[in-house]
């Protein structure tokens, strides 16, 4: 099941650390064995499958009408109210320089490093419990965005594993950047 190449080992370690940091796995599990069970939210944006650790997803919402933010950048779709808090909703496809997500069905509320945001996704496929060993590093040839930290296989499809912290950091940079630009 695991490939014993240095890169893989390195990636696995990295991922384990990351997961531990994110609180997805208990530190004991991460230490004692590689046969650790990890839980992801498996979803799609356009045709691309993604996975987010359940620890980084606080809620899954239906797409509801958003309140527009005037003068906001294109990837910032608007804001909504979630459990008494104002949450900004972004479109990652726009962020990645792709077509906006059409027919988005769900909004995932993610949190990481004390920040939260909503992302528009096409659909949520499942809550997947996988063995931590199937998590692989993203092949460099794909030149993935910086918030993608790895990949895993679910049957025939390859899911890119996102990290909410990195995504939120990047968003924050973009917001600041755009603000500084203004």
């Amino acid at each position: 099941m695991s490939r014993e190449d240095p890169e893989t080992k390195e990636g696995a370690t990295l991922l384990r650390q990351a997961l531990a940091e994110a609180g997805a796995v208990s530190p004991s599990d991460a230490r004692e064995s590689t046969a650790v069970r990890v839980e992801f939210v498996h979803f799609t944006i356009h045709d691309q499958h993604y996975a987010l650790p359940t620890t980084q997803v606080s809620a899954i919402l239906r797409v509801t009408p958003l309140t527009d933010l005037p003068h906001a950048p294109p990837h910032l779709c608007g804001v909504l109210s979630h459990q008494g808090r104002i949450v900004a909703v972004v479109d990652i496809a726009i962020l990645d320089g792709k077509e906006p997500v059409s027919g988005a069905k769900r909004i995932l509320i993610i949190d990481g490093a004390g920040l939260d945001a909503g992302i528009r996704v096409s659909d949520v496929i499942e809550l997947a419990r996988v063995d931590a060993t199937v998590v692989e590093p993203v092949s460099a040839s794909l030149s993935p965005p910086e918030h993608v930290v790895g990949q895993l296989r679910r049957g025939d499809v390859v899911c890119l594993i996102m990290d909410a912290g990195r995504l939120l950091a990047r968003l924050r940079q973009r917001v600041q950047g755009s603000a500084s630009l203004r």
Partner: protein
Amino acid sequence: VKISLKSLQAKLLAPLVAAGVLVVVVTIMAMVQLQSSELVDAGLITARAVEQQVRSLRTFYTREVVDRANEMGTRVNYDYPERRDTLPLPDTLVHELGAQIGEEYPGTLVRLYSDHPFPHRAANASYDAFEKEALAALRRDPAQPFYRIERYKDRHGTERLSMRYAAADLMRASCVSCHNAHPESPKTDWRVGDLSGVVEVVVPVDTMAAGFEAGTLRLSLVIAVGFLITVAFTTFSGSRSIRPIAGLVRVFSDVGRGNLMSRATVTTSDEFAVLGRSTNEMIARLREVVGRLLAASTQVSAASEQILASSRQQEEGAVEQTGCYEEISGTARGNSDAARNIAREADALKATSERMLEAVENGRESLEATRAAMRLIVAQNEVIAERTQRLYEKSEAIIRIVDIIDEVSDRLDLLALNAGLEGSRVGEVGKGFMLVAEEMRRLAENVSRSTNEIKTTIQEIHRFTQGSISASNQGAEATKSGARETDKMSEAIEAIFALIEKSTEAARRITVATQQQLSSTQQVVDALGEMNRISNRGLSASRQVTEAAAELTNLASSLNETVATFKLAGDEVSDGQPPVS
């Protein structure tokens, strides 16, 4: 001109001569009649005288001689010539006396005969026809003597014209006893009044007849001479008195030959003078009449020629007219044939249009059925459209419900996801919870799939029903336009029907009209035939007129010729006869 007056004289004399001849003949016939009755009377007187004398003698002899001889005893019998002492019987005496008279007066005869003769006589008794008839007649009626004049041959063979007379000899009282007693008597029961026999007397009358004839001849001669003298005298005086007629006869003869210039000369003052004057007047009148007749006959001749000419023209006209009638009649007959043809055509037309009418009637019925079907289709179409619409509405309702279900299942899914998220946060404790949430999600996904399938199906139904609605709308439109078309067609057929009805009616009228025309034409033909007949009659009449006119012309010309034979001019000529005194 010689005129004979003999014929006139003969005519005048003929009755006279005839009367004279008749008188002479009648006289002679009367004399002959008288002569024969005189002869019978004279003969009868003589014969009766002889008979009575013989009877008287017999009576006398019986009474005076025979009775006395019987008293004296002298024998009396028929055989006295043989015995000197015997006297003859009375009848024997009569026999003998008759014989004696016959000897002395030739031609005279006295005899007795009986139905019951004595045997010595019966031996040589024979009776001729007169004697038999006399016996029979006297037996019937003894009172009436039987007689006639005939030629009688006496015993010497000399035949002379004689009176034969037979009288009944009745049995007398003096004879009965003797006859009954005589031994040779053939009958012994005689009674007085019985017919004992017949006394026949024959007396010659030829000399007397000769005397009568001589007298008659003389008398006839005298009458004839007197008659001739009368005729001669009459002829003489007649020719004298009719001589003036000759002149008149000549005048009439001239007139008869046409000479109307002849006139009678009147010199006397008797009836002939009147006749002559009247004749002259008559000739003058005749002259006038003939003159007028001549003029008239010339006029008649001219007129009759004109009539002839005009009647010939009329005849030619009538012939032409007849020809014209024939021509017109031919034309009318042709017309009649044409009318018959038209009638046939019209009949055919009528039949055709009646068939057409029938066909159109059928068409109308079919069209009506089509219209009804169309209306039904439209109605059904509407029903279908309505139902389809309802189906569409229902399916929309289903979609709404499915949307709700979808919503619910989506919420369920979301709920399950969030529950799973919560479960995963709890760690090992939330593991079972996560499994339930997973199962719930799967359920929600199944529901979602199902609802999606339902939606897909319903959308297909939607599509179909929409197609169906539009199709049924189109169908309704089509059927409506079809109904409109059939309505138009129905109107057209109605119009056609009306037209054909009109045409049928027209054909019927044409048939009737042509029938009428036919009968009219027939009447015309008949009338023409009648006119032709009349014209022919006119033609024959005008031919008769022509013939009559021709005849009239002939008559007029012959009349002219006849009248022309009369001489109406020149000097009057007298009859040239000596004046009639």
